[in-house]
């Protein structure tokens, strides 16, 4: 494994190996000094052509806990806004001595392009590209689910946490704007590869043309889906504000009523159904406050696990090792 560009080309064994390394990484947070020396002297560059404070901070925390130096590049106010090309930007950054690039870009495929053009020769980690993929988000979701469904604490250090396991047989629904969601695409591939039964629940306007070729079951009607299937988890997706005026649905009220996780729908869920959201949430729109704050929500666990999972990815790509034993 040279880069992490997507989950669609990640094998089941590779994915489980990353989740297992992430389990080891959670133990670091228990140490007196919450740092491992494994990437000392290495430089990780966060190359963010699109704003995302949360993902950038998570990668930064992950790199720092592995003792790497971190450089942050944000396209806003940089040479990119002065017309510099992608090639010039990455080669400039790379000349400063980057050992890995964490790339976020509004255009689908940009990390893939950086990894394959020969402009640079370092591992590339996709931190979200357009509406294509967001592989570390899917890995942290899988990590969180594997914990929760196995009866373990959903986050934090667990000595004998789940290892070597997938998500076989788990029924997981992804709800909302699938069309524009890189999180959904990465999750569909990874969940399916880990053996979960993936359901998509969305209005037809927010599903991509050709979605019937995906390894999923489709539902237009949220309530009907909830009546027919006892889901182990619901992943609610954020609906971007700009979609609200492009006739994907009539208005916010109707969307919230038909596809939002309202308090009423929350009450009808089986008590063991977990609720997830990649953040940031639109409270009162795709998710009600009751759902967001319920004891079944894993939303903060997802954030916490994000750091461990990104540590695992950096560790794996920068050391080439499949497991971490001190």
């Amino acid at each position: 494994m040279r880069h992490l560009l997507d989950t669609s080309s990640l094998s089941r064994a590779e994915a489980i190996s990353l989740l297992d390394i992430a389990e080891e990484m959670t133990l670091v947070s228990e140490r007196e000094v919450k740092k491992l020396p494994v990437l000392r002297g290495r430089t990780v560059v966060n190359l963010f052509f699109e704003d995302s404070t949360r993902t950038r901070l998570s990668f930064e925390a992950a790199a720092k806990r592995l003792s790497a130096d971190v450089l942050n590049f944000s396209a806003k106010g940089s040479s990119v806004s002065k017309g510099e090309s992608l090639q010039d930007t990455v080669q400039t950054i790379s000349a400063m001595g980057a050992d890995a690039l964490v790339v976020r870009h509004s255009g689908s495929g940009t990390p893939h392009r950086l990894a394959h053009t020969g402009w640079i020769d370092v591992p590339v980690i996709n931190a979200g590209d357009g509406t294509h993929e967001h592989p570390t988000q899917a890995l942290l979701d899988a990590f969180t689910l594997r914990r929760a469904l196995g009866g373990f604490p959903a986050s934090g250090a667990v000595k004998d946490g789940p290892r070597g396991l997938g998500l076989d047989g788990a029924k997981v629904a992804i709800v909302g704007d699938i069309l524009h969601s890189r999180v959904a695409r990465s999750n569909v591939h990874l969940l399916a590869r880990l053996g979960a039964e993936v359901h998509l629940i969305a209005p037809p306007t927010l599903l991509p043309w050709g979605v019937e070729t995906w390894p999923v079951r489709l539902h237009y009607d949220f309530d009907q889906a909830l009546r027919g299937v006892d889901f182990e988890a619901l992943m609610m997706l954020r609906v971007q504000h700009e979609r609200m005026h492009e006739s994907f649905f009539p208005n916010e009220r109707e969307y919230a009523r038909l596809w939002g996780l309202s308090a009423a729908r929350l009450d009808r869920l089986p008590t063991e159904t977990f609720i997830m959201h990649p953040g940031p949430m639109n409270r009162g729109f795709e998710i009600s406050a009751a759902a967001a704050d319920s004891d079944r929500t894993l939303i903060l666990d997802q954030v916490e696990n994000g750091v461990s999972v990104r540590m695992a990815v950096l560790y794996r790509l920068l050391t080439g090792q499949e497991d971490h034993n001190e």
Partner: protein
Amino acid sequence: MSNHLIRGANVLGQGRADIAIKDGRIVDPELLTAGDPPEIIAADGLVALPGLVDMHTHLREPGKEDAETVLTGSRSAAAGGFTCVHAMANTAPVADTAGVVEQVHRLGREAGFTEVVPVGAVTIGLEGRQLAELGAMARSAARVRVFSDDGICVSDPLLMRRALEYVKTFDGVIAQHAQEPRLTEGAQMNEGVVSAELGLPGWPAVAEESIIARDVLLAEHVGSRLHICHVSTAGSVDIIRWAKSRGVRVTAEVTPHHLMLTDELVRSFDPVYKVNPPLRTDADVQALREALADGTIDVVGTDHAPHTAEHKCSEWTAAAMGMVGMETALPIVVEAMNDYDFSFGDLARVMSEAPARITGASGHGSLEVGASANLVLIDPDAPHRIVPSEHATKGRNNPFAGLEVSTRITDTFFYGHRVLAEGRLTTPHPAGASWTEK
């Protein structure tokens, strides 16, 4: 100007014969013996076709001379066997006045490697609001007959109707770039299974088909000539077939790349595969080949679209759309039509005779005695790999790099002057010939 005797070429694939060229025309070989001894060209194993005519090319001048000039584009045309190319109007300034089309026409004559015929814009500035000076362009020295806002669709149905009607004045034709703009906002690739997975905004087939359906009905209603540029979908083929069966005066074009490549290539995110209309699916490719074989699609047009490296060496979403293709068009069409009963005569039909007829390029499309000596010799048994850096065009955005093809263009005669000899470009035509001199 020297005379030529081409010995033993397989003429149109119908048998070996000699072709004599004297004073820029094809003549009876008997006539050559009288005067100066002609230059003899041994053409054993080569096939002679009338010089190719491209209805659809972008020469970029004026305005984008860093991507291509009329001269470099003309040399590329000659290397690809084209003796006549139609230069699309989306230059800067746009070719929407007699002044600009005459400039392009003059640059073509000065270049002297191929006949450059300007295409006029349908609307001022390609903006789709007001008709450009179609009559003035038609009556200019450039004698424009083909009008197109190529790159942009004439989407306003009333404006399209008016344009179709107006060009009847001088037997002109409107070449439509069929793309419903609202259905393709932000589109990056074919809308299909691949775009769903890659998360790139899709360009649905229906955006092309709905415009073609509308326009064939308009052309029928007003009795005008309509040409559909770069047809890319199976559904478009069905509509055009239906329209032709009703007697609508519609002609259609397909590019070499749409006959050969599919949207699966976009998985590489390499912008060399980014083009408009986008690469479609295998089913579309098969339908386009079938349509070219049965005549539903009349011509191959290259849509040669050179771009500078900085417009392609970028991320997919920022890259420009377009591929170069004049120098690889004929070999690619041969490969694409391999599985069909597609003769050299058919090749001449779709790449020379039909485009010459549609555009009114009277000096092209024929090997008859008396015709202007615009012809090409090809070697059908010369396997080689495509190397874009060796091409005469400035554009390096050729999607066929590395592909092995069997056919090579060896010689191009442009109004009797051998602009390509044994695969090498020579000198421009001394007179900068043009049929407008007649």
